[in-house]
């Protein structure tokens, strides 16, 4: 092509080809403003406190004693070891104000009212739980896992559910779109990220059409996750079409530790007959029609059958919590078709409304019960010391432990911590792989006994701070599909080799140690 513009400036350092991606624009600016306001409030709080402490000298002594007491309290708490260490450093270094910040961040205080409301909702909706009980023919490992889910979180054990695994976001959402077109009575959608773009346009057109024709369409989105991506214009269009929207935990410019707690769940429920979950959010990068971090590797799961009611229950409870409106759930249950299938299927959730850390403990159970193989795909790898210990134990005991991580990171600091953790494990026999030219966003853990597919990352945020969902199953068809996905993905991966020289470097070790301090926040 003739260059009519050779007199113009010449761009350098642009590479040969660059796929155009969308900028965040005003959304990023608003996020920055909110973050600045929160930081200013925090600094003001600290300043007021320090001024008060300086004015009353005796208060310095009292502050120090209070911080020491808080340290002892932290040591006796249920927090993981790394969080305890970080909090104790913070409490001692900032003793003039740190104990106040700790109190503000303890969910027993700030979440007290919310937990009471959730408990009320749970109690009221327990009658909708239909549990098939635990089949005596199950393996001991699966039986134990089912007992944990049933007793620890009151999640019903389901059978008679068809499962279909999608090894990419594109495949998942093509199926979601086809299914949504057939919706007749209700559509429930819950995502951490909902983003304007081609995918939302394709799905939004169907949702608007369905809502206009009387289908009950409800969407829950996380206000921080969807901040700057789910535009006011689109929300207005949805509301005008009759779609009901509820943001989870509004992002407000007020200092509050509660802002850290996000709804990370991903689900679509159609007519109480079909449900979807997995790693994907509702945005173009998940179907690779927008490029952010290389190839976006993700997954999804479709459920048809009895287990769909569990997802409906999860959604309706969250909806009632957000809307503060009570309703009769019964019109939304028992619409599923009956499929004769033996595998157990247990959809489950995790979040502050549960006393136990369900997501973490299910992973721990699967990993500790593995005797032959253990395959994991996760975008972030920031486990606590218990999970790390079990993985190392398994690898040394001869279990084939393999972890697939991304080669292209989305958050460099988190990736630094992930690689540091992964290298430590690779030294002790765990095979850690990075998928070349890709950001792996799938969250799946599989042993020879069972598999979990869902929204739960192997990091401290998913385990302790976020509202999550997943499906546990021993269904052989599903496990076969997941294994195929792993085997195909291994071909595009490179194994991480433990680098002894790098790990002995003092500067590297200092940097790695510093990063670990922030791990509980990642």
């Amino acid at each position: 092509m003739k260059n009519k513009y050779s007199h113009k400036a010449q761009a350098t350092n642009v590479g040969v080809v660059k796929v155009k991606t969308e900028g965040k624009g005003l959304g990023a600016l608003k996020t920055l403003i909110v973050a600045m306001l929160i930081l200013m409030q925090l600094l003001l709080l600290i300043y007021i406190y320090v001024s008060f402490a300086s004015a009353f000298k005796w208060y310095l002594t009292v502050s120090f004693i209070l911080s020491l007491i808080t340290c002892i309290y932290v040591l006796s708490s249920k927090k993981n070891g790394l969080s305890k260490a970080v909090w104790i450093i913070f409490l001692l270094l900032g003793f003039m104000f740190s104990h106040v910040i700790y109190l503000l961040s303890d969910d027993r205080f700030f979440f007290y009212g919310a937990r009471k409301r959730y408990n009320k909702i749970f109690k009221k909706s327990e009658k909708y739980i239909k549990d098939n009980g635990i089949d005596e023919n199950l393996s001991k490992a699966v039986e134990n896992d089912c007992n944990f889910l049933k007793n620890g979180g009151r999640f019903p054990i389901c059978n008679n559910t068809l499962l279909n695994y999608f090894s990419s976001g594109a495949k998942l959402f093509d199926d979601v779109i086809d299914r949504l077109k057939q919706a007749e009575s209700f559509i429930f959608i819950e995502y951490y990220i909902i983003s304007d773009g081609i995918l939302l346009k394709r799905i939004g057109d169907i949702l608007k059409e369905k809502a206009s024709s009387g289908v009950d369409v409800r969407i829950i989105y996380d206000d921080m996750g969807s901040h700057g991506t789910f535009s006011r214009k689109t929300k207005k269009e949805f509301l005008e079409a009759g779609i009901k929207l509820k943001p989870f935990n509004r992002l407000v410019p007020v200092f509050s530790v509660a802002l850290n707690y996000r709804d990370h769940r991903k689900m679509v429920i159609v007519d109480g007959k079909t449900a979807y979950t997995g790693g994907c959010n509702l945005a173009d990068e998940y179907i690779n029609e927008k490029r952010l971090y290389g190839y976006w590797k993700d997954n999804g799961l479709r459920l048809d059958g009895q287990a769909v009611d569990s997802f409906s229950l999860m959604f309706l409870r969250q909806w009632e919590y957000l809307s503060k409106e009570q309703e009769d759930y019964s019109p939304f249950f028992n619409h599923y078709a009956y499929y004769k299938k033996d595998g157990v299927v247990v959809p489950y959730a995790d979040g502050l409304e549960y006393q136990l850390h369900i997501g973490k403990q299910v992973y721990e159970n699967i990993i500790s019960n593995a005797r032959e193989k253990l395959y994991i795909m996760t975008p972030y790898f920031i486990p606590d010391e218990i999970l790390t210990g079990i993985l190392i134990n398994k690898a040394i005991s001869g279990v084939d432990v393999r972890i697939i991580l991304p080669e292209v990171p989305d958050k460099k600091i988190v990736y630094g911590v992930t690689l540091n953790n992964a290298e430590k494990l690779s030294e002790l026999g765990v095979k850690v792989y990075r998928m070349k030219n890709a950001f792996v966003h799938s969250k799946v853990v599989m042993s020879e006994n069972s598999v979990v597919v869902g929204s739960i990352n192997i990091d401290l945020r998913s385990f302790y701070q976020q509202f999550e969902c997943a499906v546990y199953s021993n269904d052989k068809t599903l496990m076969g599909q997941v294994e195929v996905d792993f085997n195909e993905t291994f071909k595009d991966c490179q194994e991480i080799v433990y680098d002894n020289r790098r790990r002995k470097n003092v500067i590297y070790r200092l940097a790695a140690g510093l990063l670990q301090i922030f791990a509980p926040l990642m």
Partner: protein
Amino acid sequence: MEKIYDDYKNTDYLKVTVLREKFEEVNGYYITLGYRQIEIKEDKVYGNLLHLVFARPHNIENKDRLQYLQVKLESHLNALSRNEEKRHTKSLVVSLSIAVIVVALVTIGLSIAFNINAKSGLIVFGTILTVIGFFVGVSAIRPIVKIYQKEKVDYQVKLAKNQSEITLILEEIKRLVKINEE
């Protein structure tokens, strides 16, 4: 929000910025991937950039694999370009650094040595500096040549690897697209 084309339900669109001199080559690659070019625009600021828009049917076989290969191809093309640019960077930097040191030593040495008002000790010092400068300059020639030759070999290996990866990727793309056409 970016422009959404009319047929967004059945067609995938791809917007790409390309170096003008590589336009024909890159255009060919995307056509191999099953795209057709629908728009081409000059960049408003830079004369060596072109903005292209491609379209492809939404429902195609082996789409996930083709999307992954597309990313790999783009990554290797950019790596190839970066490696071509960096081919002699190290030897250039070393040469320039040593040249600056040599010139500085010789200049300072000569200016001290040929200063009429300088004491004899300083003249000797200036002469020594000049000699050191020349010595450093002459001694550095061989190592710089070695660095240059090693760099040439290293980058030839890297470029060859990039090129072979691109070839393999294109072979797989052609195989998959052929399967789609059948």
